[in-house]
């Protein structure tokens, strides 16, 4: 069955806070700043918001955000689980709420002090006996307890299976940072970066080195989703959700799906892609640019394969042809990605994908961008969306 949501929800507002390593303010402050920026961008008032979608990991209760902003009544609030896998899942929630009339105008937000507060690189620990803690317990005693170490385990096997080399990882790391260096909002703004610096950087968990890994950032991002009817009256050109899907595949674990017959793959994203293509009526050839979740450089490669931009094991050649660059087949992570703009758990990626369709990216490709892909984190239950110009 194909879900009937095509073009029933439209992104009409986007907002980011300043990104930093030390915000000096609460996560709630970041959340309301991001939401307010998105509301202003849309030309709406806080009281126009009647729904909210965020991450289970987000510390900012919907009702706290609502009270701080003066939103008033909420008729929809839904949270998505699995860390960065929740990025487009929040958009999925918002789309369903708007398409079904559960709410008219939903804000998706994520705000975190990811550097000055709780750091993901610190790893997992803890002795509260939840199913989640027991899950991490199969890895913690051995020292496999950071996101980089889990992704490294997949990457080593995937490189072994496909013959893809560090050249391709560097191309992802480099093309993304070239965009970031040109984005005043990016951590990497104004920086230079080359292969020598990439190679010389410390190893985090082999084969991943420092520049294969994303930032840890303080900041917030938000997008406003509403109906096409409402969108037509607002100040920004509408960016329509053509299709959005989430998927947890067979034998799924959170970052550690090591028990599949062949674990060097992301079947959950393949299935999500299939569903998004089916509900949008679009194919891979319709996608002009992308924001692909990049907590680590190799995960961009796997997703290119899952969405069919190239065959399995061919993503190395695909990117080494310059596909991700501004004049390439698929300009990707034009904001600098989470590798070099900021790590806001992929919601800054939805902001950038919206800009790409509006034509307002700081690194806008010369060609028309009719459709942009945006994805969530992988290795976990995940998903993605195709955004297009509102008809």
């Amino acid at each position: 069955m194909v879900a009937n949501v095509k073009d029933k929800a439209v992104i009409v507002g986007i907002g980011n806070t300043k990104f930093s390593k030390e915000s000096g303010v609460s996560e709630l402050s970041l959340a309301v700043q991001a939401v307010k920026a998105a509301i202003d961008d849309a030309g709406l008032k806080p009281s126009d918001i009647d729904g909210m979608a965020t991450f289970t990991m987000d510390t900012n209760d919907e009702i706290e955000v609502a009270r701080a902003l003066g939103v008033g009544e909420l008729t929809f609030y839904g949270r998505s689980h699995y860390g960065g896998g929740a990025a487009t899942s929040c958009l999925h929630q918002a789309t369903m709420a708007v398409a079904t009339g559960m709410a008219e105008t939903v804000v998706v937000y994520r705000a975190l002090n990811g550097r000055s507060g709780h750091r993901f690189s610190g790893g997992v620990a803890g002795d509260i006996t939840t199913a989640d803690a027991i899950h991490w317990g199969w890895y913690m005693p051995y020292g496999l307890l950071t996101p980089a170490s889990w992704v490294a385990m997949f990457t080593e096997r995937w490189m072994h299976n496909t013959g893809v080399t560090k050249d391709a990882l560097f191309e992802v790391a480099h093309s993304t940072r070239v965009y970031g260096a040109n984005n005043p909002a990016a951590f990497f703004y104004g920086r230079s970066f080359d292969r020598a610096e990439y190679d010389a950087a410390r190893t985090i968990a082999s084969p991943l080195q420092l520049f294969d890994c994303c930032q840890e950032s303080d900041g917030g991002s938000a997008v406003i989703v509403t109906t096409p009817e409402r969108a037509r009256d607002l100040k920004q050109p509408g960016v329509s959700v053509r299709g959005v899907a989430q998927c947890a595949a067979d034998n799924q674990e959170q970052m550690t799906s090591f028990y599949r017959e062949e674990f060097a793959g992301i079947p959950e994203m393949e299935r999500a892609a299939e569903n998004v293509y089916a509900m949008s009526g679009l194919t891979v050839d319709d996608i002009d640019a992308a924001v692909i979740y990049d907590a680590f450089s190799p995960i961009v490669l796997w997703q290119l394969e899952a969405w069919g931009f190239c065959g399995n094991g061919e993503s190395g050649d695909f990117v080494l042809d310059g596909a991700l660059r501004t004049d390439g087949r698929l300009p990707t992570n034009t904001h600098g990605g989470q590798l070099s703009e900021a790590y806001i758990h992929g919601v800054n990626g939805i902001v950038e994908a919206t800009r790409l369709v509006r034509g307002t990216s700081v690194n806008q490709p010369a060609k028309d961008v009719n459709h942009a892909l945006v994805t969530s984190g992988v290795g976990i239950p995940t998903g993605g969306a195709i955004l297009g110009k509102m008809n």
Partner: protein
Amino acid sequence: MTANELNAFEDEINAFVGREVCPPTPAKDDVNTAMIRQWTEIIGDTNPAYTNEAWAAKSTRGKSIAPPAMMYVWGQEGFAVTTGRPADAQADLVSLFNKHGYTGVLGTNVKQEYFKEVSPNDNVVMEMVIDNISERKTTGRGPGYFFETLSTFTNQHGEKIGTQRFKVLKFIPQEQPAAPAAEDTLQVPTRIASPRGHDNKWWWDACDAGKVLIQRCKSCQTLRHPPRPMCGECQSMEWDSIESTLDGEVLSHTELHHPKIPGYQYPLVCAVIRLGEGTNIVSNVVGCDPSAVHIGMQVKGKVEQVDEKTMLPQFYPASSGIRS
């Protein structure tokens, strides 16, 4: 001290800013090789420009020079200082601070600038003023004020050779927190243990007893790891277990470099290992160089005590002949 008293006190100390501590005073002794030799010996500075007359004569200067950092040395009082200093503005300022409880003293920094060199037989003339006094600061030592003197050095021709700024903190000494009592026993961090609940405690208890078990469905015999309460094949909740022989093959591996977590020994290699029984397990590969670990490597496991509190399966290269 009331706000008014504090204001009055600050007016009094601020009146010292700009006051002369010593007028231009020629050093009692000219710059000389004996003092330079002693100073460079103590400092350990072997630069021949200071002490090797023959070398210096052939250098671009044509003669030896005094180390610039000695600038302040030439005007120092000798033994006479032990019989007391003559009153000057700095001494008056210090006693004013002391009178108001700012008895603590801490020299915080010295900054010298050099403009011209001096050589033996030159004479260094020093003058000093109180240059500035900070606002009241809260410091780790207690509340206080920083004051800075500025000394200016000239040679016998009136040419400026350098300056020195010397900053001092005068503070009200605070009780310092007592150093934490020494631990009776040194706590050595151990590995982070898995929490134990209904679905996994039996597995870790067996591990503590030296065994690696694999959960088995009693109904359809399917093995499963990690343990779960229900069989995904037949939905039976009845299960028992078998003991693994810990013969395995490396499916993937990573060497953990950063961050280094307390309680773990590095180098540290983690691997996904397919056991001979058919299930996968994550563990460490030990007993070989990390660079020797590879996909397809045959390994043999053994449950070991890895620290004071932790029993874990550890896998060695099968070629090492280790037995579980």
